[in-house]
């Protein structure tokens, strides 16, 4: 049994069980639980927003909307379906993709460039231990397996998934021929399957 995160000090327990307990408190409109959840997860979610949207002000707007939705829809969370972090990351990604479409509709920045600084989805030296704990089991497995892909395969797969881009959009961003991107993604997915299937 995981202890309830302490309300009086800043929360540090980022296990899925602790996050699920916070979400359960958010359902009953516990504001401190939302704040604790925000403190624990917003750096991860903000980074995801930046990876999708690149522009800081867009990412800030989307992070805000994502937490408004988490507050409203925490009751829809089912721990049997996904880890809390997976669920919150899905909300953030969906809001970010919606936002990107709206911006394109307004004619703003039709193509957001791939930023090298945001490229690596693999762990770095900078990741603190608490960030590592935050990852769901599934994310850790995926991380290990993504590490086995060649960098450009991983980049193509990540672009396609995180930004919901087509083969040709990925090709345009990475400035390589369409056929090349198709084979990077195909081989990347094959490797992922072999690796993930062995867990």
């Amino acid at each position, binding site marked *: 049994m995981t202890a309830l995160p302490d309300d009086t000090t800043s929360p540090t327990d980022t296990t899925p069980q602790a996050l699920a307990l916070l979400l359960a408190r958010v359902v009953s*409109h516990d*504001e401190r639980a*939302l*704040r604790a959840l*925000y403190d624990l997860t*917003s*750096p*991860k979610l*903000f*980074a*995801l927003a*930046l990876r999708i949207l690149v522009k800081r002000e867009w*990412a*800030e707007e989307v*992070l*805000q909307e994502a937490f408004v*939705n988490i*507050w*409203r*829809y925490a009751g*829809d969370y089912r721990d049997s*379906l*996904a*880890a809390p972090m*997976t*669920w919150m*990351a*899905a*909300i953030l990604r*969906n809001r970010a993709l*919606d936002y990107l*479409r*709206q911006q*394109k*509709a*307004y004619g703003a920045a039709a193509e957001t460039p791939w930023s090298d600084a945001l490229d*690596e*989805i*693999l762990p*770095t030296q*900078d*990741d603190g231990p608490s*960030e590592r704990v*935050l*990852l769901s089991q*599934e994310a850790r*497995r*995926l*991380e290990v397996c*993504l590490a086995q892909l060649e960098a450009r395969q991983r980049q193509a797969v990540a672009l*396609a*998934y*995180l930004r*919901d881009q*087509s*083969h040709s959009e990925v090709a345009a961003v990475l400035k390589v021929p369409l056929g090349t991107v198709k084979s990077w*993604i*195909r081989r990347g*997915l094959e490797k992922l*399957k072999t690796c993930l299937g062995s867990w």
Partner: protein
Amino acid sequence: MDLHRYPGLVDRLAAEYALGVLRAGSRRRFEQIARSDAAIRVSIESWRARLQSMAELGAATTPPPEVWLAIEQRLDLGDARRGAQVATDGPAARRAPPVSRWFDNLSFWRGWSIAATAIAVLALAIAIGHFAPFASAPQQQVAQQGAQQEPQVDSQVDYVATLADKDAHALVLVTWNKQTSEMTVRRLSGASDPSDKSVQLWGLPKQGHPVSLGVLPRGATARMKVASVNDFPVLAASIEPIGGSPNPNAPSGPVIYTGKVIPTA
């Protein structure tokens, strides 16, 4: 075509489908086949499960403090800081608006809406033509239902409603694609959201109470999944407390726009 005859093909297509790179006609055909093939659906689901945690990976970046302040403001939080005040003036007391019986009355709704449609229909053709180019953007399902993606290859619109205010100014255009269940809500020029309220969209069935189609996100264009817009002859929008009407079966605030649902074919 029996995809299972080709070793590995189903799995490859399922992977590309879940990743989102299977597009247009291929995506539609694959969905069509998956509908009657449980093995393919299982394959798609396992790929979805494999990929969805990708969003969790990567280094973290601390957001600026303004973001939390904005969240507090949008959700009217801050009771934790206001302390003792909570007991007497808690969120429940402030957030529960009176539920007006008046708005439960369907004949009131219908009478209101018929008058508003005349000019709205005129605005339609122009509006559809104007917005068609970005109806073809790939669509995203709401987060609660997972990372599922649906095709939206052509800008197909099966039903349309222009919602107008009491002065018959068309202010909101709603279009619905029957195949993908995708509803698109576009604010036309002149439509503005009250800053501290939500706008909630309702379907008014022939019989029974209004059905909530969702709280509209802020911004010019909103897309959401709605199962059966064609079941409602009339749509309406009401002003609600942030997050929507406390009564799931009726608006609690004033109705600001209504319009008829019209098939395009």
